[in-house]
């Protein structure tokens, strides 16, 4: 009967984090196409963009960084509803709330998985698109850097919105509404970094701001998401 003795009130975070992360990555890998989807969407929208404003190369070069960032935001946006929706529908979320680990650790795992399957691949494909807008190699480097530093913020804000809107009808649009205003500053600083670099001005300030956002988010987001999940379950 010792297997059912009172568990020590241990405070383990990592195993819960890892379990969820592993599972979500496994799920993504199961439907491999899924990992590719944000990237394909990203490339597609960014390539189609010139259609909207006409293919004036000078204009394109001017808006390049902004477009890449905006398309990245859109791709992220579209991927948000699926962070929690399925776990909610099939009852896994309840089980997570009852898990042996703090719900915040689990939320952290889901966040990490989301970034690894969206933010990271998006950041790494950005140069391809930058090329189309005529960026040179160093600028592309800054673009990737800005995305790597900034995209976790997108995942974090998005996860909060996704958790808050659980069970609401028309979730995907609701998320967009909540999230877009918050994404705007990220885009401004992210694109700003690239543009400053292109203009030969110091771009460190922009990147520093993004980095600060990411770090602050890392500390706070898991708890906010966990709270939002508890609300959704009640």
């Amino acid at each position, binding site marked *: 009967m010792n297997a059912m003795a009172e568990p020590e009130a241990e405070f383990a975070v990592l195993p819960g984090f890892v379990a969820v992360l592993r599972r979500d990555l496994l799920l993504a890998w199961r439907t491999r*196409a899924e990992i590719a*989807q944000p990237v394909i969407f990203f490339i597609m929208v960014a390539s189609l963009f010139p259609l909207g404003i006409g293919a004036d190369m000078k204009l394109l070069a001017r808006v390049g960084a902004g477009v890449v960032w905006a398309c990245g935001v859109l791709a992220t946006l579209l991927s948000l509803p699926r962070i929690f929706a399925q776990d909610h529908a099939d009852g896994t979320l309840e089980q997570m709330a009852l898990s042996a680990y703090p719900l915040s650790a689990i939320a952290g795992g889901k966040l990490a998985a989301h970034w690894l399957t969206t933010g990271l691949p998006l950041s790494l494909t950005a140069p391809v698109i930058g090329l189309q807008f005529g960026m040179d190699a160093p600028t592309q480097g800054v673009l990737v850097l800005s995305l790597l530093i900034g995209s976790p913020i997108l995942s974090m804000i998005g996860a909060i919105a996704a958790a808050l809107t659980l069970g609401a009808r028309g979730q995907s649009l609701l998320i967009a509404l909540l999230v877009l205003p918050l994404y705007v500053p990220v885009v401004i600083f992210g694109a700003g970094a690239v543009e400053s670099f292109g203009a030969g001005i110091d771009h460190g300030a922009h990147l520093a701001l993004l980095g600060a956002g990411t770090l602050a988010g890392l500390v706070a987001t898991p708890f906010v998401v966990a709270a939002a999940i508890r609300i959704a379950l009640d």
Partner: protein
Amino acid sequence: MLFKYASPASFYPLAGKLAPVFAVIALVLTAVGLYQGFIIAPTDFQQGEVYRIIFIHVPSAWMGMFIYLVMAMYACLALVFNTRLSAMMMQALAPTGAIMTAIALWTGALWGKPTWGTYWAWDARMTSTLFLLFLYFGYMALDNAIEDRRRADKAGALLVLVGVVNVPIIYFSVRWWNTLHQGATVVPGSSKMADTMLAAMMVMTFAMWAYAIAVALWRVRGIILEREKNTAWVQELLDRP
């Protein structure tokens, strides 16, 4: 006769026999076509040497469109007669079609720079060709995302059929709209091209055709094995050394 080979079990060995044949044909024709195109065919009176991209560009563009039409035909068969093999053929053809379309886009862009003065313009021919590529991607993504084989097959077939309107648009775009892309050179009856050039282009077309068939047959063999791995005949086949 035809129906006999419509069953995967009998098509599998047939495909195994045909694939190498077409592969060899493809190799030979490519050699001949490239020789004819790059050594024998004269330079062009307007474009000089760059025009030789034509020997890759046009065949691949044709194949990109043609493979889509073939897929649409299989899609009809799959939806109407519920034949297993046609869905497998669609799945086998799609990557080749996508590659062909990508090559057409790529060579077209490369060719555009020296002749038109730009890699890309959003004219009707180019845009609709780009859509063709996206359609291939869409089909493959859908096929991948639906886990149930039967549903994936049918959904993919429906998508291919819906997208087929794009093919005539590609073909007639140069007639319907003012485009930057040139009009039709090869017109049945009266082609506006020197015979040697035309011959090289046709040889290359047949080479790509043979290549597409060979690759599709190879791929479909893999797909058949994968999908029928639990049937008696595949088990038997695998048990044999």
